[in-house]
């Protein structure tokens, strides 16, 4: 049976397993990914089945992990690197931005770096500092990287397959608060293109654009709005670099209103890029300015405050109301 109901975490695990099986060059690297199976158990069982040479517990040094992954990629391997939590990617930022992102261009295409960096990201899990951040804009701004995030198990499986098969470096953000959300995964499906948005719910009055953990929040908001007679379309963007502006534009040309939702701080966030570009593309279609719902310009707060900090149903609906009021 190729269709199974899986949690996002299990779908990622299955996807890694498939990749390890299909291509002897695929490696898993990171802190605690081996015996422990990762702090979220996403790599559970992989070292046992594929050995320490392919599922590698690394020293505690993120720059070292990404830097050696680059070297392994130069040697022909396809490393899939795990960063344990969003807030711990920064020691590797230099290697990612100055080396991983630029080597293909630097070498005029002679060198390819098929490295995937998996980062569990986002909040709402009651964690301590550095464990709940959404740094995607800091990667999407950098040319040479691709940045994606699945919102459901099927995408988690397939987008990771495609990321591993891509010859470009891909930052794969995993919505950790949704790790246990289950949905159907068809491991024999033929997936669509990686960097396209998906209409998660069709609607006519306003478009909600989101990715990763906020897709579910937006779907809930759309359901709530429906009860009040408002028809919201929900776009699951899936990719933050590139962004599928064509799909957003197509949706907005119909709905004439757009609200972008992400956990990351609004200031210089992905919502800004979407708002700017969609306003340019749809200037005569928009009935209201593109509104953004996201984190505040504040460090991610202690967990007892995170419900107030994170965009939830109410804040999304508030923005929807404001947009509809124009």
């Amino acid at each position, binding site marked *: 049976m190729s269709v199974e109901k899986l949690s996002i975490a299990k779908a990622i695990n299955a996807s890694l397993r498939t990749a390890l099986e299909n291509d002897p060059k695929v490696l898993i690297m990171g802190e605690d990914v081996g015996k*422990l199976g990762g702090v979220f158990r996403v790599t559970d069982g992989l070292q046992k089945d594929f050995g320490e040479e392919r599922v590698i517990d690394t020293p*505690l040094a993120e720059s*070292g992990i990404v830097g050696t992954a680059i070297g392994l990629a130069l040697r022909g391997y396809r490393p899939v690197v795990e960063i344990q939590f969003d807030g711990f990617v920064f020691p590797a930022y230099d290697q990612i931005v100055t080396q991983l992102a630029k080597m293909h261009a630097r070498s005029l295409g002679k060198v390819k770096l098929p490295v995937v960096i998996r980062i569990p990201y986002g909040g709402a899990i009651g964690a301590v500092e550095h464990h709940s951040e959404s740094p995607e804009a800091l990667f999407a701004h950098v040319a040479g990287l691709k940045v994606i995030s699945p919102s459901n198990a099927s995408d988690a499986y397939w987008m990771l397959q495609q990321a591993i098969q891509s010859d470009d470096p891909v930052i794969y953000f995993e919505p950790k608060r949704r790790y246990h959300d289950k949905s159907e995964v068809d491991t024999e499906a033929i997936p669509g293109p990686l960097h396209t948005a998906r209409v998660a719910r069709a609607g006519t009055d306003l478009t909600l654009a989101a990715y990763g953990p906020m897709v579910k929040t937006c779907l809930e908001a759309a359901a709530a709005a429906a009860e009040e007679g408002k028809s919201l379309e929900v776009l699951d963007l899936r990719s933050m670099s590139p962004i599928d502006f064509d799909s957003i534009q197509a949706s907005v040309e119909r709905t004439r209103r757009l609200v972008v939702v992400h956990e990351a701080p609004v200031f210089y966030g992905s919502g800004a890029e979407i708002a700017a570009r969609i306003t340019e593309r749809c200037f005569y279609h928009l009935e209201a300015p593109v509104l953004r719902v996201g984190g505040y*310009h504040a460090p991610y707060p*202690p967990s*007892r405050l995170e419900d107030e900090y994170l965009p939830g149903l109410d804040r999304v609906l508030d923005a929807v109301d404001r947009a509809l009021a124009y």
Partner: protein
Amino acid sequence: MDSTAARKPRRGSSKRAAGTKATKAARPDEPELVQLLTPEGERVEHPDYSIDLTSEELRGLYRDMVLTRRFDAEATTLQRQGELGLWASLLGQEAAQIGSGRATRDDDYVFPTYREHGVAWCRGVDPTNLLGMFRGVNNGGWDPNENNFHLYTIVIGSQALHATGYAMGVAKDGADSAVIAYFGDGASSQGDVAEAFTFSAVYNAPVVFFCQNNQWAISEPTDRQTRVPLYQRAQGYGFPGVRVDGNDVLAVLAVTKAALDRARTGQGPTLVEAFTYRMGAHTTSDDPTRYRRDEERELWEAKDPILRLRTLMEREGHADEAFFTALEEESDALAKRVRDVVRSMPDPDHMAIFENIYADGHALVDEERAQFAAYQASFAEESH
């Protein structure tokens, strides 16, 4: 808590004859480590490190370790009861922390990682203050300057550089204070720790790097970080490294004091590797049965830091039954106080999200604060 009170030193009766080399290898393949008190509670001599403590001082150290362990156990319980989101237990590392913490002077500055509850205790930080970040009400609940004890640092290795910079400042000031930076065996792999070694050596900064090698970095044993003993790392940077029995509070105290003295007297940095063991899980979120065997834990149980000091104290008569009974009562009282404080610890005001982001303000923060307040108020209105 006056374990450092001056008193005429008394000689223990069970010390081995001076000159007997009393370093012990932790494992057959491991190098020697400085030890002054064996797991069996025997006092031994070391050619380079000696210590002479009064009974009162020994009782002080013992009390520190017992209360720290009790506090730690209570915190673990509170986490299980849902009062804390997480707890990082120091179980097994009491000697490493109390020995080194008690070696510091008030004017020294301490940079902990996230597990230094025993050091915090020595510095006079109220233990309940440590719990705020684990409960999720703040990201650091004490004033670092009040006890010269910095906030816990979660990003592994970062604080080694802060300590080095702080020590550079101490030297600039011409002060004879010292600085101590705590980190783990896993942290030794981080570039920041290496850069701290480089900066501290080049500037001859008065800093002690105190590495608690508790054998594990979450699920990874130390051989995932190094193939030679960690204390040896220092020599390649041009300063001494020493491995001490991290479960021997006397040796840790002596070795750390010596290292801090080197710092004070312009001799620059030292790396102290306290060889110890993380008896519990990495944190309450961790499940060590997935990656390590019970036997290892049992081996280390036999080296318990508290038990061996108690054996010594009882044999040599440093404390009577009354002391131990009183201490038990004090432990219970501490645990109760911790429990009570935590349970009544209020959630922060929502507006705290917007506080303290900047010292001098930021227009956007003001704008978002106002919007948030209005938004919150709109609910209040609705519910009227």
